[in-house]
Structure formats: structure tokens, C-alpha cells
């Protein structure tokens, strides 16, 4: 059994394309073509060149010595925080903008929560000279003003999502509605491994460069391709999917997924989807999601806007259900402390999303000679005001 997607677009019980007929032509066009396009030599060449020259790949695999010493194990950080625009999100947007061009689309839409994916999308649209519209929940627009300004500087139009709870899930709804209204010329750049098939697989493939590099880099440093564990935070699950990708079917590599517990699993203010979610349909995918008994999607909470999503990608739902992945939830408090600690120990200020992955070492113990790779998905610049407020800096 493989943990990759099957030919019908499912990961075990999860995935598929539960979309209204209005979206069928667009999603079907993408489904039929994405693998062929990605295989084209010219596509691969352009994708790799942009990742190298524009994004700044390969990102380093850094042995965090003082951090390792503190926790009595060997910890490597995969430095996605050093990507252009400050997070892994741009690996996917570079891939998708090249895909959109080959599909002949001249208008790009995207959703964003914290604004990281919005910025990464606006960036590649500026690079290619393509019109860019980003939907963002009205509440997030207020919370993430610097990223809104960045998107505007990059020439994107930011449209507030005023429906529902006015956060990421509603921004995603609005982007999908836009796609329904503009079925011919528009490509929707989804920001994580969510949405209808083939999005979860396509986004995972674009992010797979993360584990592709880890293999090569670990071989150089440790003379082995496989770490004992790969750890990543999971919002929708794209940085995690990229970090796990080439290890999914290698059982000797442990997969650890870190979700946001918010103020605590039972506090009613949490985003730990694997624990609190039930099987259902969100944004065109059958997966685990937080919902009421009546099947209404509920609003998650996390101090980190990037983990504040009520669902999780179908790949991760399957990793959870099958037991292939170990799922850990981390509270706001533990994550914030871990972020501050990394700054002090290693001189790296992580995104609060990534801080969740760093926080597991307090309780989850590893062996002294274990090699643990943590995907440091983003840098903390965007979170400075949250860090300042939290620690009264």
C-alpha cells in the first residue's frame, strides 16, 4: 500500500473531487494535464531555474547544535524560512504559475489566511506579469496588515471575504466562487494540499523539492538519505507534504505532524483537526474537518494564522487514520516559547507556524543518535507584532 494518491484521486478513504458541476471543466482540465505538463522537459527546466535563481534553493539543511544538545538528540533544520518571501509557500506558487501559463490562463486567483500564500502568489504574478486577485477574510486583513501592503505593492488586488466567519475558510469559498464566475481564463492557485483532486497531489509534488533536497543534503552530512524522523507543522499540510513526500513509503522514516492546539484541545479554541475533526467534505475534498454534529463547518483557532484551518489535506487525514503519521498538538503557549527559544539558541526567529514543530521536543523524547529533521517552514518577520505583544518585548 502506498501513501501517495491513487489514480482516482484518493489517499485511502480521503480526497476525491466533491465539486459543483460549474467547476468540473476547470478541475478536469487540470486533472487531465497536470502530470503531463509537469513531466515536460521545458517545464522542469523553468521550474528548477526559478527555484534556484529566484527562490534561492536549495535551502540549507542546518545542524542545530545548541538546540540538539539541549534536547539530547540530533536535530537538523530544513531552512524553508530562507526562501524568497519567507516561507515554503513560494515553491508551490512558482510551480502553479508555470502550470497556469501552459494552460493558457491569464488571470490568477488565490485565497490567503496569514497572507503568506497571498504574498507568494502576488510575487509570482508580478514576475510573470499576470493579473492577480487575492481573497482574504476581512478579519485577517485587519490582523495581517503588513502582508496586505506587500500584496498591494506587488500589484495584486486584495478582496475582503465578508461572508461566514470572514477568515481563511471563507476566503477559500470566495476564491472558489470567483472561479465559478470566471470559468475560462482563470487559474486558481490553492495555497496548500487541500481542495479537489488534483490539487492536493499537484501542490505536494511542487513542495516535494523539500524532501528531495533533504535526501541529498543528509547524505552529504550523515552519509545516509533517511533521517529517523521528519517533523513538520500542519495547517492545510503543504510544507509537511513536501517534507514527507519522498519518505512516505519508507517505513523506517517516522513521520511527525504537528497541529495547533490553540488554547488547548478541549478549550473550544483549537485547530487540532486530527483530534477534533470528523470525516466530511470541505472545499471539494473528503477529509477530516472540524464541524458540528449537524455537519456545519466550525471555526478553528490558533495564535498562528497559518494553522488556523478547519480541515487538513487528505494525505494527512490518511496518514493519521492509517497510523503512518504520529500526530502531536501544541498549544499557543508552547509554540511561542519554542519560537523564542530558537531565537536565543540558534539566532533564528521562526514563523509561529514553524514554532509549533519545534515545540514537540519538550515532551516527545528522541534517542541520542536519532536524526530528526524539522521543517522550518517560515521566518518570523510576519509574526513580530505577535511576538512583541506576547512577550511584551
Amino acid at each position, binding site marked *: 500500500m502506498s501513501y501517495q494518491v491513487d489514480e482516482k484521486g484518493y489517499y485511502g478513504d480521503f480526497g*476525491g*473531487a*466533491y*465539486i*459543483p*458541476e*460549474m467547476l*468540473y*471543466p476547470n478541475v478536469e482540465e487540470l486533472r487531465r494535464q497536470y502530470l503531463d505538463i509537469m513531466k515536460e522537459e521545458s517545464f522542469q527546466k523553468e521550474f528548477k531555474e526559478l527555484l534556484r535563481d529566484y527562490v534561492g534553493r536549495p535551502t540549507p539543511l542546518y545542524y542545530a547544535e545548541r538546540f540538539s544538545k539541549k534536547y539530547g538528540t540530533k536535530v537538523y533544520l530544513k531552512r524553508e524560512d530562507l526562501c524568497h518571501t519567507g516561507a515554503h509557500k513560494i515553491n508551490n506558487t512558482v510551480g502553479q504559475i508555470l502550470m497556469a501559463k501552459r494552460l493558457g490562463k491569464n488571470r490568477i486567483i488565490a485565497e490567503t489566511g496569514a497572507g503568506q500564500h497571498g504574498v507568494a502568489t502576488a510575487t509570482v504574478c508580478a514576475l510573470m506579469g499576470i493579473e492577480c486577485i487575492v481573497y482574504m477574510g476581512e478579519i485577517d486583513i485587519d490582523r495581517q496588515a503588513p502582508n496586505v501592503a506587500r500584496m498591494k505593492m506587488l500589484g495584486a488586488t486584495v478582496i475582503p471575504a465578508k*461572508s*461566514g466567519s470572514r477568515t481563511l*475558510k*471563507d476566503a477559500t*469559498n470566495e476564491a*472558489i*466562487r470567483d472561479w*465559478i*464566475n*470566471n*470559468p*475560462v481564463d482563470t487559474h486558481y492557485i490553492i495555497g496548500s494540499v487541500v481542495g479537489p483532486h488534483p490539487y492536493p497531489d499537484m501542490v505536494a509534488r511542487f513542495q516535494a523539492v523539500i524532501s528531495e533536497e533533504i535526501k541529498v543534503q543528509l547524505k552529504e552530512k550523515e552519509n545516509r538519505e533517511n533521517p529517523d524522523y521528519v517533523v513538520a507543522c500542519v495547517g492545510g499540510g503543504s510544507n509537511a507534504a513536501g517534507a514527507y513526500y519522498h519518505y512516505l513509503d519508507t517505513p523506517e522514516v517516522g513521520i511527525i505532524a504537528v497541529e495547533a492546539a490553540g488554547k488547548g484541545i478541549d478549550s473550544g479554541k483549537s485547530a487540532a483537526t486530527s483530534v477534533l475533526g*470528523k*470525516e*466530511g*467534505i*470541505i*472545499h*471539494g475534498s473528503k477529509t477530516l474537518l472540524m*464541524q458540528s*454534529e*449537524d*455537519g*456545519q*463547518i*466550525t471555526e478553528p483557532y490558533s495564535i498562528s494564522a497559518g494553522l488556523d484551518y478547519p480541515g487538513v489535506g487528505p494525505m494527512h487525514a490518511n496518514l493519521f487514520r492509517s497510523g503512518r503519521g504520529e500526530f502531536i498538538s501544541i498549544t499557543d503557549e508552547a509554540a511561542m516559547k519554542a519560537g523564542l527559544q530558537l531565537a536565543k539558541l540558534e539566532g533564528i526567529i521562526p514563523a509561529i507556524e514553524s514554532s509549533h514543530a519545534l515545540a514537540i521536543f519538550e515532551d516527545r523524547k528522541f534517542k541520542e543518535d536519532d536524526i530528526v529533521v524539522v521543517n522550518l517552514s517560515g521566518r518570523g518577520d510576519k509574526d513580530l507584532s505577535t511576538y512583541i505583544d506576547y512577550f511584551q518585548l
Partner: protein
Amino acid sequence: MNRIKNTLSQDKKLLSIYFTAGYPEPEDTVSIIKDLEKNGVDFIEIGLPFSDPLADGPTIQESSGVALKNGMTTKKLFQQLDGIREEVEIPLIIMGYFNPILQFGVEEFCKRCAAVGIDGLIIPDLPVEEYNEKYRVIFEKYGLSNIFLITPQTSEERIRFIDSVSEGFIYMVSTASVTGSTKGFTQETRDYFRRISEMKLRNPQIVGFGISDEETYGQATEFAKGAIIGSAFIKHLNSSGKQDISGFVKRIRPV
């Protein structure tokens, strides 16, 4: 007895109205259904409110939000509809997104539908392939018609496939848009209505999305068997309340 087929076999153009269950007031569901029937509406779509209605514009989104705040649930809808067949004869169709149905349990949902006298379902985010593979036997067991959508972008091959799976009618989405557009129909849209009618499908077509007045109703039913009005009726409820339902229906289809 199949109420949908009977209604479709009538020698006239049909008018269907969509409204959101539990809107504007939680207990309005049954009285609105009765009023619509009394005023000559041919069949009704009862909207099952959902927190994230992807295919809907602002009007239906808002009515869903209000209905949910009013405490509307799937369970409550079935309680309200219990006994409706003692009073209402026209076909009743539930239109809802798949997640609440999945949580209720697809089989249990179908069973309850059959028990209260629902004739069919429209589930916009349940694609025909998934339906065929996993759910068709259940729907058929309980005698429910599942209605599928087609759009101006749907290929001829796919329309024929959908026609072959459909029992009842085909829901023809007028233009590429979410519900609630009031832009009127272009010549291109009317050509699409004609093109589909010339395909001579097994199932009659009923047009929905973007029908808001007598003119758009007339254009939609020039070639199709009937048309469905949703957002315009919700707006009417919002501005005039439940008093003047007869006036609303007469303005769409004067006698």
C-alpha cells in the same frame, strides 16, 4: 406514484421556487411551502442551510447564515416536514450541500426523506461519478430522484452521460456564475438554452440561476420545460416578508 414525473408531464411551462429552510424565521418552513403551492408554484426546492455554500451568491449565503443562527438543523427540518404530505401535493425537492447529509448518514437521510414525502434531491457538490459509484443504490432504494446540474461549459458527451444517470429533470445552470446574478440573459445564453433543447435529451430541462423576473423567466422557458427562482424570492422574503407571496408569483408568471 412519482410526483416529479407527473408534474413534468403536464402540458405547460413550470415554475419552481427555492427557499432556505428556517428563513426568515425558524418555523416558517411549512407555511412558506403551503403558500407557494396555494399560489400555483409547480414544485419547490427546500434549501438545507450550510455554513459554507460554495455555489451560492450573497443572498442565499445570508439566508443560510440566518437559518443556522435560527437553530435550523437537518433533524429539525425533518421534524418540520413530518406530516407535510397531508397538506401539500406538489413535488418537494431538498437542495443541500453534501457534508450535512454525510454527517446525518446518507442512508438515514434518504430514509427520512422518503418517510416525510420528499421526491428528489439536488446536491451540487456530489459529482455524478461519486453518486453512481457509492450512493445511487441508496437513493433508488428510497425512490428519490437525484437531480444533476449542467452548465454552458459542460461538454456534450458529459451532458449525455448525466442524462443517462438522471431520473426526473436536468438542472440547467443558466450562466457561469454562482446563484443570485441579476444581469439578465445574453444572446449567447439563450443560444445555449436552444442548443440543449435540440439535443433531445431523455430528461426535460429546468433552468436555474439568474432568473429574477418575468422577462428572465420567459427567456429561460422559451426552450426549457421550466425555471427555478431562488435568490429573487429570498430577497422578496427579506423585503416584504411572507405576506405577499402571491404577488411575487404573479409578477413572475402573470395568469
